[in-house]
């Protein structure tokens, strides 16, 4: 049984403006990375805004609005990655070097990853995109949602959205 790779079945791809990617100029240079938000549906939810310490995720006029981002203010701190109930925020840091990017991904599964682990990096439909190396694991809100920092080939930042620890 092959599930379609369609937006209607939960794969938030480029068919519609599902992924809001940061502007290339700033993204290439910004140490710490910038946020990628994949939250294309108007739902009543705003913790990304209320958790953002710099105001980069702008205030909502209506709680049903989709997030709007001021990339000039984003520090890549990944607090929104840890807070978002939909696990729809990701950070990608393109300054990692050696042709690699550092992705900060939310993780709420077992087994727990550890620094140095090789992990499978998964795409939006669960496909194995590449291998990555765990560079750090944090738990910013002490609520068991971990943010896993994984280095991946820089050309995979548009595809990698989860990890599987094997």
């Amino acid at each position, binding site marked *: 049984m092959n599930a379609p790779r369609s937006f209607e079945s939960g794969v*938030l791809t480029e068919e519609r403006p599902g992924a809001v990617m940061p502007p290339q100029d700033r993204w290439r240079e910004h140490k710490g990375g910038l946020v990628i938000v994949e939250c294309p*549906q108007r739902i*009543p939810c705003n913790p990304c805004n209320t958790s953002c310490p710099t105001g980069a995720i702008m205030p909502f006029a*209506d*709680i049903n609005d989709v997030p709007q981002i001021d990339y000039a203010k984003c520090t890549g701190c990944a607090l929104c990655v840890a807070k978002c*109930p939909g*696990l729809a925020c990701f950070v990608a840091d393109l300054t990692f070097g050696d042709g690699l990017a550092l992705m900060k991904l939310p993780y709420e599964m077992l087994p727990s990853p550890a620094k140095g682990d090789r992990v499978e990096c998964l795409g939006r*439909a*669960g496909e194995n995109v590449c291998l990555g190396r765990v560079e750090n694991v944090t738990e910013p809100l002490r609520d068991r949602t971990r943010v896993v920092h994984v280095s991946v080939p820089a050309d995979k930042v548009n595809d990698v959205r989860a990890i599987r620890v094997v």
Partner: protein
Amino acid sequence: MEEIRTDVLVVGGGPAGLSAAAEAASAGADVLIAEGDLHLGGQLVKQSHKFFGSKDEFAGTRGFEIARLLRDEIAQCGDHVKIMLNTTVSGYYPDEKLVTAMVGEEEYVHISPKKIVLASGAQERLIPFPNNDLPGVYGAGAVQTLMNVYGVTPGKRVLMIGAGNIGLIVSYQLLQAGVEVAAILEAMPRIGGYWVHAAKVRRLGVPILLRHSISRAIGGDVVTGAMVCELDEKFAPVGEPQKVDCDTICLAVGLTPSNELLWQAGCKMKYVPFLCGHVPFRDKNMRTSNSDIWMAGDVCGIEEASAAMIEGRIAGMSAAASLGFKVSSENFEGCHARLHNLRAGEVGEKIRIGVSGVTVDGWEANV
């Protein structure tokens, strides 16, 4: 038989009931919460995911943590709130304004409340297919209870029926419990739940099959698999059904209000498809056509816990105010505004339409 007197009886200790009890008690009323289960918190206790909404509804906080916060709030009310667990309210006698309840399986009590807030929640829907009564066909809420409340593995491989929020969330929670999810079937051409919930399970490799349904459960005494078929535009099966191996079939095909007591109380009711069943008419403060009865949460239409908590606060305040206890009008207005905001988007459209069809401006003094 023992007769228990109270200012306000709250039926159901879930998010709506606890919120109602907290408001009524903090206004000064004596409140009794009758909860059928063994703990307070209702379905919140089994929600391990973080909630949506705004800060006022504990957005970004896990459901079971919200249950703890509400229990803490109830504890702050001290002697104003009494709690009866494992107590199922089974009857309402309008002439005597008397409530009967079953404590455990064999003991009955009478409760004589001045006012009642019904927050009895909802129950799981079932869909027809051969063998849908086999052990191993479980409601989604039951699967959550097993694995998230009591830490019991529900099965090894689960087939999920329904890609609404519950089906998507429970699938994610199954993965967290180390259980394989064979697939999520959805009869509609698109997922019914939030896209972000679907994205969470898709990226972990769970297939969501649109326009698919279960044609039968397989097994002698217990489930060992399921036949799955594709559906055409008219929801008729097309092609050869395929076999899926699984030991659990989880039904997440919707809920319907647990409205028995509202019927018994003679509340004016209406069938509202957008609210998933028969629901009572209500004024904006959640009072039913029976002037002694308010309601809140899923019993007045299937929505979600954030709205249930606000409705509970409104109902609790209004019930207390009717007994002469002082409640602030600011608090009322704040709750109404929050409820309005939660429902203002596209995903709230059906709720808005449903609720507007059963909301009255006010009840005549004599009803």
